[in-house]
């Protein structure tokens, strides 16, 4: 079924199709219409889920953690300061290995208050052990929600599905709504490895010592370090699981292909622009303009940011002369997080002596500052024709008006 709706509704329909059983969310702009739509579905009887109108985001994720630990498929959504408020729970969900799915409708973080789009909220959570998917349009939003539950439950790691506040959440686009029978083939009912049960009691996530310790059966149990190592190991393995899930999705729904990267005109590109989210689709127009001027430039969208697809990215960009990373977040005190990640990935190759592209970082759209296609075009034109290596330490902040 084809539909024209906004990104929040696309996400809500995705959650409905996925059969989430417990939904706990607190309203925050620009996520609010997503949770409102879910309330409508539930109260109209279209969706059989327990809805908890929690009194804060910290409680929202707490309720999801508890519900997931009890064996129910759990979902929440938030933005910006709401995500930050639940930050301790974000770490907790990953360490507890719970397959919770959360939509993050990307928005700038305070202080000062700002309700418009940038990626500081989700990027600031990149160390927590969650899987992070970034969507570029509404089709990707609804599809990613389904894929998120499948991946999360396959690897027992929570997943953040990120999409741009206002730019995607509130704009209207056509998209295909997956058929229920097809969804049933793609996403099976949740079968947790363990669910709280008086028949099979266990004490979950209590104080865990630095060292290993013998359990009641006399076997040596892991210490905290081993438990965390296994999270890391499973996260790295998720790169393959994400691709398997993508393949399965494509087979059933007929769309998709690459779980990790979304290239546009990169095959012969001398310069590649790397980014996350809807910005990468906006860059397609920039690429068309610059190509018409004779510059061989392409866009590499990163679909899966955590675990970071270092190997795939290096393979995809190593032939280029230069890589430009444009991002909507900063690791304050240093540089853009994605910029650092891309450079680190290429560093390994550089060590082997092979030529690697130069990498230049740029920041745009902070606090929802409009990213004008003309500005992007001018900046990149100057970058490919000028001397990018003279850029200096700080990445250019496109559109800054000091």
């Amino acid at each position, binding site marked *: 079924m084809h539909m024209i709706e906004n990104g929040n509704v696309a996400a809500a329909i995705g959650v409905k199709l996925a059969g989430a059983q417990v939904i706990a969310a607190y309203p925050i702009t620009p996520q609010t219409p997503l949770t409102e739509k879910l309330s409508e579905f539930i109260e109209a009887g279209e969706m059989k889920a327990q809805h908890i109108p929690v009194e804060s985001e910290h409680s929202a994720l707490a309720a999801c953690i508890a519900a997931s630990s009890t064996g129910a498929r759990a979902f929440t959504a938030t933005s910006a300061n709401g995500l930050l408020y639940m930050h301790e729970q974000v770490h907790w969900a990953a360490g507890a290995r719970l397959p919770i799915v959360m939509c993050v409708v990307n928005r700038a973080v305070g202080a000062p208050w700002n309700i418009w789009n940038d990626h500081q909220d989700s990027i600031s959570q990149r160390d927590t052990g969650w899987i992070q998917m970034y969507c570029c349009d509404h089709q990707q939003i609804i599809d990613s929600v389904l894929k998120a539950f499948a991946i999360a439950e396959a690897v027992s790691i929570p997943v953040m599905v990120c999409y741009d506040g206002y730019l995607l959440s509130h704009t209207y686009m056509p998209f295909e709504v997956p058929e229920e029978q097809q969804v049933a083939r793609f996403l099976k009912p949740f079968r947790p490895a363990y669910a709280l049960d008086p028949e099979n009691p266990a004490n979950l996530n209590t104080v865990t010592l630095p060292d290993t310790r013998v359990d*009641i059966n006399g076997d040596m149990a892991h210490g905290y370090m081993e438990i965390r190592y296994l999270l890391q190991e*499973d996260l790295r393995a998720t790169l393959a699981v994400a691709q398997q899930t993508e393949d399965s999705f494509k087979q059933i729904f007929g769309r998709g292909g690459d779980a990790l990267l979304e290239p546009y005109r990169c095959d012969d590109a001398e310069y590649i622009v790397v980014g996350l989210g809807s910005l990468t689709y906006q860059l397609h127009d920039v690429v068309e303009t610059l190509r018409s001027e004779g510059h061989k430039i392409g866009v590499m969208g990163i679909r899966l940011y955590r675990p970071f697809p270092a190997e795939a990215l290096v393979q995809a960009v190593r032939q280029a002369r230069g890589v430009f990373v444009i991002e909507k977040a900063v690791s304050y005190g240093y540089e853009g997080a994605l910029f650092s990640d891309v450079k680190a990935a290429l560093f390994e190759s550089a060590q082997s002596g092979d030529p690697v592209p130069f990498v230049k970082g740029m920041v745009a759209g902070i606090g929802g500052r409009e990213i004008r296609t003309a500005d992007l075009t001018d900046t990149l034109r100057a970058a490919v024709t000028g001397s990018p290596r003279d850029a200096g330490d700080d990445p250019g902040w496109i559109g800054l008006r000091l």
Partner: protein
Amino acid sequence: MGTRGYRYKTSHSLSGPGDGGKTGSWRVQRPIIDLERCTPARRGSEACFICWLYCPDNVISRTIPPTIDYEYCKGCGICAEECPTKAITMVDEADVVANDEDPAACSTEGPRPCT
């Protein structure tokens, strides 16, 4: 399954005694029950059991007579304080050990009050 099954990837604890070790080693004094004064012991029937009720560590058995698991008894003295017939006295652990009684012996030999 090795060390990568669910239970090994998470902090998932199963129940058993002695998380704090043999907490009997915490004791400075141990409770001794005088069966002449203990109500259920004297009557030979269900009665009192106040010591069983109030023991924070679940080391007094609800039996006739009540017995104390010295492997885990922390020697708090609540049982001695609350016993309505003053049947329980707290005796220095050092004295018990000095009198050649192995502190763990009472529990390994099965339910039997130490006198």
